[in-house]
């Protein structure tokens, strides 16, 4: 009896430890000056969230968390940092005025208080179906439920993945069109001399020929 109470205390202890680590890593991911470090802290935070899912006895969600968040989303964020030159300086994090900073702090506190109150008054124990708890704990049961009985969910996920691929291609095409505008558009390289005086145009001609030589 004595032993079981000690073990009962172990689980809240583990939860508090993991939750504390997650909070520290999340703060670092938001506030670290080097944005690449912040992205890595996000990855570490995501893998510790998997620890929470392990505490909840949900192995599939824990594995999904590691594979998709620590692996995929972290890589996506690091790539986003590489793609955007402006994201690499920390000027984005600065508030334009102290008043906006205060408003942001008040909003953040309100959200924290509201979610805390909701977490306390929400009837967690009664709100979950016992059969679903049994399913989420067992990989075999979950696989049967997802693949054999509710396969449509998996197909919907596949379609969402397709959407992301098509969206990425569309983004690339838009970017290409934007880059081509700078060549042939109204304000493109070729249009620049037209905005200037005719005298300047004469000087411009050898320049364009030089460009062509370089291109060839």
């Amino acid at each position, binding site marked *: 009896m004595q032993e079981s109470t000690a073990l009962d205390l172990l689980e809240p202890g583990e939860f508090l430890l993991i939750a504390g680590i997650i909070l520290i890593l999340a703060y670092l991911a938001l506030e670290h000056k080097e944005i690449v470090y912040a992205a890595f802290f996000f990855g570490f935070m995501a893998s510790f969230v998997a620890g929470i899912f392990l505490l909840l006895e949900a192995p599939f969600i824990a594995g999904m968390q590691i594979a998709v968040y620590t692996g995929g989303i972290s890589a996506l964020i690091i790539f986003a940092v590489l793609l955007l*030159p402006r994201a690499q300086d920390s000027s984005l994090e600065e508030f334009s005025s102290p008043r906006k900073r205060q408003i942001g702090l008040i909003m953040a506190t309100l959200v924290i208080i509201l979610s805390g109150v909701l977490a306390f008054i929400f009837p967690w124990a009664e709100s979950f179906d016992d059969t679903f708890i049994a399913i989420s704990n067992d990989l075999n049961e979950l696989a049967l439920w997802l693949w054999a009985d509710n396969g449509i969910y998996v197909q919907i996920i596949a379609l969402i993945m397709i959407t992301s691929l098509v969206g990425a291609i569309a983004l690339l095409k838009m970017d290409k069109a934007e880059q081509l505008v700078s060549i*042939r558009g109204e304000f493109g390289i070729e249009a620049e001399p037209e905005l200037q005086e005719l005298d300047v145009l004469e000087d411009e001609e050898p320049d364009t020929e030089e460009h062509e030589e370089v291109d060839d």
Partner: protein
Amino acid sequence: MMQSERLFAQFIPVLIWAILAIVLVVVMLLASWVLRPHVLQNSEKTSTYECGEEPVGPARISYPYNYFIYTVLFVVVDVMGAFLWLLSSSNILWVDATKYTVVWQVAVFILIIVGGIAFVMKMLPQAALDGKETLEVYRKAKAQREQEQHVAGGH
């Protein structure tokens, strides 16, 4: 007895491996710090190595957007792998009653995703900015401008 079968407790070996990995990295960093010669650091020593050339500009530049698609592809394959892992970790293929529906579900799932990847592979050359195409557009725009100037009575 019930407590020792907790899923979290089963992952203690993973935790030990994680700690060992961190210790290994720290030991390697410390060892290299101890073993390396501590010479004077100057701007020549600390500058980025760019094949013997003097580095121009900051090392952090914005990469072309074309590389973005590879990350999206990675995430898609990642999610596909996670769902197939769920299937592989079950004994579902030995359950005769559900065997054939599962086979069809997996076939459709993989076909949709592989079809998406094939679509990306097909569209990728068209979506990226090609040097030849750029040159063609450039020449066309230049010829058009010269013609316009000719009509307008320029030189």
